[in-house]
C-alpha cells in the first residue's frame, strides 16, 4: 500500500457560483463521502488547505491579474472575465487556498514523506490563463505546482497529464514555449467542446515545440479509444521526455453520465486510464504523482470515480 495524501478542506466549499452553475461545492462533498464510504479515509494522510504565498502564484499569473481578481472579489462582483466564472466574496481566498493546498501536497510528495496525493480542490485551474479567468478557473493550480517543483529544485523536467474532457488551454499556453514542462491532454475534439483549442496540430512553439501533445477524441467514443490513445500518444512521448515529476489534471467530466461532454468513458475506463498514468509515474518518477481535481459534474458518479481514483493511488 502506498502512502497517499488526500487534500480536502471545507473551506473549499466557500467558493459559491450561484444557482444554475455546474461547478458547485457539492462536487467536493460527493468526492469526500465517496472516499469515506469506501472506508479509505483511515488509509490516507489527510491534508488541509493552506493559503498560497503570493509569489508562487506570480510564477504563473501576472501580478495585475491577481490584483484585478482580488479587487473584483472585494467589490462584490458576481462574475469575473466571463459570465461562466461566477464568483462570491470568498472566491479569491478560496482560489489561494486551492493553490496553497496543492503546493502542500506537492511538497509532501516531492520530499518523500508521501508517495502520491489526490487534491480535491475548488475552484479548478486548467482553463485559467496567465491573465484571464476562464471556464470556471481562476488560478492554474497545476501550472503553479509545476513551477513550484522546479523552483524548489525537486525536478527539472515536469510532465502534466490532463485527462479532463476539456482541453486545458491555460496550462498549454503557459508552457507551450517551454521544453522543461511537457503538457499532454486527452479531451473531446475541440470542434465539439469548450474551449475550442487543443487541436492535434498544436504541439508547442519554438524551444517548446514537441513538448505539447493533444489527443482529440470524437463524441461518443470511450474506454477503448482512451486506452489506445494513451498508449499510442502519451507513453512514447514520456519515453522521450523522461519526466522527473508527474502532475495530473484529473477531470471526471469525460464520464458517460456527465452532461458536460459527449465522451463515454465508464468508471472502469477511468480506472484504466489512471493505472496507465501510475505506470508512467512508476517508470520515470519513482511513483511520485500528484493528482489535482479539475472538472467532473455528475454528483451521482463522483463518489465512485473518486473512490476508484484514490484506491489506485493507494494501490489497494
Amino acid at each position, binding site marked *: 500500500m502506498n502512502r497517499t495524501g488526500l487534500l480536502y478542506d471545507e473551506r473549499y466549499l466557500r467558493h459559491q457560483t450561484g444557482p444554475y452553475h455546474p461547478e458547485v461545492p457539492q462536487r467536493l462533498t460527493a468526492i469526500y463521502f465517496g472516499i469515506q464510504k469506501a472506508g479509505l479515509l483511515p488509509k490516507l494522510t489527510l491534508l488541509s488547505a493552506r493559503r498560497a504565498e503570493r509569489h508562487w502564484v506570480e510564477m504563473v499569473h501576472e501580478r495585475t491579474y491577481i490584483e484585478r481578481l482580488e479587487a473584483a472579489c472585494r467589490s462584490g462582483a458576481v462574475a469575473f472575465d466571463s459570465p461562466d466564472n461566477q464568483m462570491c466574496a470568498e472566491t479569491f481566498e478560496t482560489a489561494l487556498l486551492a493553490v496553497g493546498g496543492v503546493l502542500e501536497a506537492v511538497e509532501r510528495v516531492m520530499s518523500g514523506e508521501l508517495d502520491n496525493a489526490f487534491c480535491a480542490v475548488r475552484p479548478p485551474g486548467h*482553463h485559467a490563463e496567465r491573465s484571464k479567468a476562464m471556464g470556471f478557473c481562476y488560478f492554474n493550480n497545476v501550472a503553479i505546482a509545476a513551477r513550484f517543483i522546479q523552483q524548489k529544485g525537486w525536478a527539472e523536467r515536469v510532465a502534466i497529464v490532463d485527462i479532463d474532457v476539456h482541453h486545458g488551454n491555460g496550462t498549454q499556453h503557459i508552457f507551450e514555449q517551454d521544453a522543461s514542462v511537457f503538457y499532454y491532454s486527452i479531451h473531446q475534439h475541440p470542434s*465539439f467542446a469548450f474551449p475550442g483549442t487543443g487541436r492535434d496540430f498544436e504541439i508547442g512553439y519554438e524551444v517548446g515545440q514537441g513538448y505539447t501533445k493533444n489527443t482529440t477524441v470524437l*463524441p*461518443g467514443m470511450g474506454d477503448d479509444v482512451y486506452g489506445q490513445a494513451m498508449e499510442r500518444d502519451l507513453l512514447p512521448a514520456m519515453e522521450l521526455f523522461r519526466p522527473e515529476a508527474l502532475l495530473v489534471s484529473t477531470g471526471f467530466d469525460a464520464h458517460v453520465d456527465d*452532461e458536460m461532454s459527449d465522451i463515454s468513458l465508464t468508471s472502469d475506463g477511468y480506472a484504466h486510464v489512471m493505472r496507465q498514468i501510475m505506470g508512467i509515474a512508476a517508470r520515470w518518477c519513482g511513483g511520485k504523482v500528484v493528482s489535482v481535481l479539475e472538472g467532473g459534474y455528475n454528483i451521482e458518479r463522483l463518489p465512485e470515480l473518486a473512490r476508484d481514483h484514490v484506491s489506485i493511488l493507494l494501490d489497494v
Partner: protein
Amino acid sequence: MFVQKSMTRKVITVGPDSRVLEAHDLLQRHHIRHLPVVDSDNILVGIITDRDLRSALPGGLYGKTPASVDTGPYADLTVREIMTPKPVTISPTNTIEDALLLIQRIQVGAFPVVDEAGRLQGILSVRDLLRAFIAVLGIEEPGTLLGILVEEKLGQMKKIVDAITEENISFGSILVARHWEPNMRAVFPYLLTNNVSRVKKKLTALGFRLLDPMEWYMDRIPKVD
C-alpha cells in the same frame, strides 16, 4: 463585411519595366506569392505570381539568390514580358461574400484590390479570406457549439435565441445549414460558454432535437475501420 476591412494594405509591388529577377528576389525575401505590378501612378497593370516565375525561369535559377548563380539571358527579362496583364480585381467596397464566391469561380490565390480609378489599394489573399471567415465563425474565442434540428417554420429561430439569451449566454455566431431530412434545418449556435448542459435541457424541453455531434454537417458518418 467589406473587403477593405480584411485586405492586406501594405503591399509589395513591382514596376512593369523591372527585371523579373528583381521580382523573384522580392517574392523570396518577403515570403509572398503574389506581386501586383503597378505603374508610376500606382495604377495596377498586372500581377506576377510565384507560378509565373517558376515557368519563366529555368530550374537552376528559380528559388536561388540571383547573385549566387549565372543568370545568363534571363538578367534582362522584364516583368511586363511574363506578367498576367489586367488580372481579375476586386473593389474595397466589395464584400467578403463577393470575394468568396468569386474566388471559387476563378481559380486564383489573391485579388488585387483597386479603387475606381484603378489604383492599387491592397491585396486580398486566400489567407485573408480564411482569417475573415474564422472571425465570422468566432471559433478563436472559447466556446461550445450546439447542433439543433429545427423545422422550417416561422418563429423557430426566435425560440432558440430567446432560450439561450435567458440563460445569459453570449453568441459567438449562428450557422444555419440544410439538413438531409425534408423541411428541416440544422442550426449551429456557437456559444461563448462552457456551461451548456442547462440550456441543452431547456431546448429539449421546448421540443427541439439536439443533433448528435457525429451527425453535424454530414450526410453520413464516414466509416472508420
